């Protein structure tokens, strides 16, 4: 019964010093905001890692020069930088030794920042040209929407055929006209459109549809930018997957001409390894953000304590009056504790609302699903309450133990 009175008195006291209360609340809000915003964004990214990174087909793995992300010391980064590109010759050697033990061996090579042109329409100069073969679409999870995929003869004769990513198709054929067998120009060279892929969507804010696929043989002869090839391999079955990877490593070592003493100078990427490496980054960011936010909350706690101490000093007389009319220690303690608790919880709520909003705006920007980070909201509220109580305890204790005679003495 007394709780309600104490509460309304606490709130009333806080409204008496609006600016001061708000400033203190903002301190807490900023701390909570940073935790919630970062954690919301990270959670959203986490949700999309599964969907975004399972871009390889089932039972498929990829061999590349470098890992998906390099995360570590300069030493390991130098190690990757010195690796030699995977060449066409090596890729063919690899295929020869792997052909009977797996299927759909595909090659891929990409060049970023190109421009495609049809009639008087031009794309932005950010189109990726991918050199691939007939297996590219299956191993990368693209489905032909209409027209046809690249076929084996396209590769063999290094034909100037092209399959468009859905975004490129939408830019160059906005009226819905059938692009099949139309001619377009990529970097000044003429290609005939064989088909268009289905939309795959974005991963990490990166469109996966802003590309064109040409035969890899043509790519190697006509595109100047030479980079390392990547090879996709599909295991014969789920059961065979681990052995397929082992065999692929062996075949690749052979193709790269490695001796027994050399370590692998290439990486095997599986859906799992991609996810793992992103999780590693995510964890590091999360830990860092959490520590920084925690520091911010600690500072906010000190701010609360400071304000409450000032408040106790200012209201010494009020405390004396309350005590003289019979307020017991516990009630005075509770009143001041409630004030600090209220400050930190209001800060917590504001921080949570803004944090969730911003976190979700980030999520939207990256085309990630919206979410409400219950776990982190709970954590923040608990932490806020703990801060309110622990940092408010000393000032409240001080107020409760004021000597009424001293407190009432006119200054």
């Amino acid at each position: 019964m007394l709780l309600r009175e104490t509460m309304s008195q606490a709130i009333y006291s806080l409204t008496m010093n609006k600016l001061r209360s708000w400033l203190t609340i903002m301190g807490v809000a900023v701390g909570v905001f940073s935790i919630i915003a970062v954690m919301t964004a990270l959670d959203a990214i986490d949700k999309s890692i599964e969907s975004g990174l399972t871009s390889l087909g089932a039972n498929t793995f990829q061999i590349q020069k470098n890992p998906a992300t390099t995360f570590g010391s300069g030493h390991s980064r130098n190690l990757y930088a010195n690796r030699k590109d995977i060449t066409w010759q090596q890729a063919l050697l690899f295929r020869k030794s792997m052909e009977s033990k797996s299927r759909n061996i595909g090659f891929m090579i990409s060049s970023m920042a190109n421009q495609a042109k049809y009639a008087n329409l031009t794309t932005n100069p950010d189109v990726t040209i991918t050199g691939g073969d007939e297996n590219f679409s299956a191993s990368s999870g693209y489905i032909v929407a209409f027209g046809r995929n690249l076929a084996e003869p396209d590769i063999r004769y290094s034909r100037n055929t092209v399959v468009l990513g859905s975004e490129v198709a939408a830019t160059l054929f906005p009226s819905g006209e059938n692009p099949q067998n139309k001619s377009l120009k990529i970097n000044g060279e003429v290609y005939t459109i064989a088909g268009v892929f289905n939309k795959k969507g974005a991963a990490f804010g990166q469109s996966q549809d802003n590309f064109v696929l040409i035969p890899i043989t043509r790519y190697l002869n006509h595109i100047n930018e030479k980079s390392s090839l990547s090879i996709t391999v599909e295991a014969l079955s789920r059961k065979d997957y681990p052995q397929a990877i082992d065999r692929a490593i062996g075949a690749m070592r052979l193709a790269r001409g490695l001796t027994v003493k050399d370590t692998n100078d290439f990486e095997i990427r599986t859906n799992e390894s991609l996810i793992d490496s992103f999780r590693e980054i995510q964890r590091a960011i999360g830990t860092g953000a959490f520590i920084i936010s925690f520091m911010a909350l600690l500072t906010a706690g000190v701010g609360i304590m400071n304000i409450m101490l000032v408040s106790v000093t200012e209201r010494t007389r009020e405390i004396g009056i309350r005590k003289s009319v019979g307020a017991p220690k516990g009630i005075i303690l509770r009143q001041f504790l409630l004030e600090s608790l209220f400050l930190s919880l209001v800060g917590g709520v504001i921080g949570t609302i803004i944090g969730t909003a911003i976190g979700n705006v980030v999520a939207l920007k990256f085309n990630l699903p919206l979410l409400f980070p219950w776990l982190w909201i709970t954590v923040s509220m608990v932490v806020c309450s703990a801060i309110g109580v622990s940092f408010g305890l000393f000032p409240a204790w001080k107020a409760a133990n004021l000597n009424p005679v001293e407190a009432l003495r006119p200054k």
Partner: protein
Amino acid sequence: MQSLCKFYEMGDQTVRALDSINLEFGQNDYTAIMGPSGSGKSTLMNILGCLDTPTSGLYELNGQSVAEMDDDELARIRNKEIGFVFQTFNLLPRLNCLRNVELPLIYAGVAPEEREERAAKALVNVGLGDRIKHKPSELSGGQIQRVAIARALINNPSIILADEPTGNLDTATSHDIMNIFGALSEAGNTIILITHEEDIAHYTRRIIRLRDGKIESDERR
């Protein structure tokens, strides 16, 4: 109270603020405690009001020994048995008259509706029925002191303790306030007031004079 003492340590000196005081106040006593500054009258008032505890000696209030009580028991006694009227009024400036008067009832655990009703009635009784929603800053000194009296009376205390209640008021208002105390005494209340003004003291029926922590005289009229 018997052989009541209160000592303060001031540096290496011991100040005997109250030195073996023996006093008894009966029901419906109307007493003035007088004395020059430093005579110990404020200390006596603080102990009578259970704001402070004696260094030694016995103080019984309605048969309860107060000297041994802890802070929360003292708070409860102040709430139920004592009504304070201060020279500096000591109202909470941010609360209106009604909220100020009902404050002791909050700590007594009285329900909100009953609180408001009783506080409003108490304000009517001191002639401030039309000032219920005013804040202390909107009232004159005499009116403020009447609010304080209403607050002191709200919980039907055993003793009303008034510490220089007219010290901050002009003569005419002082006499108004003393008339209120007179009426309260007529109604059966026990009143102890501290003053250094002879004419104020002469409203009462008993005058106790203190000097250097000892009783100089105790006369009833």
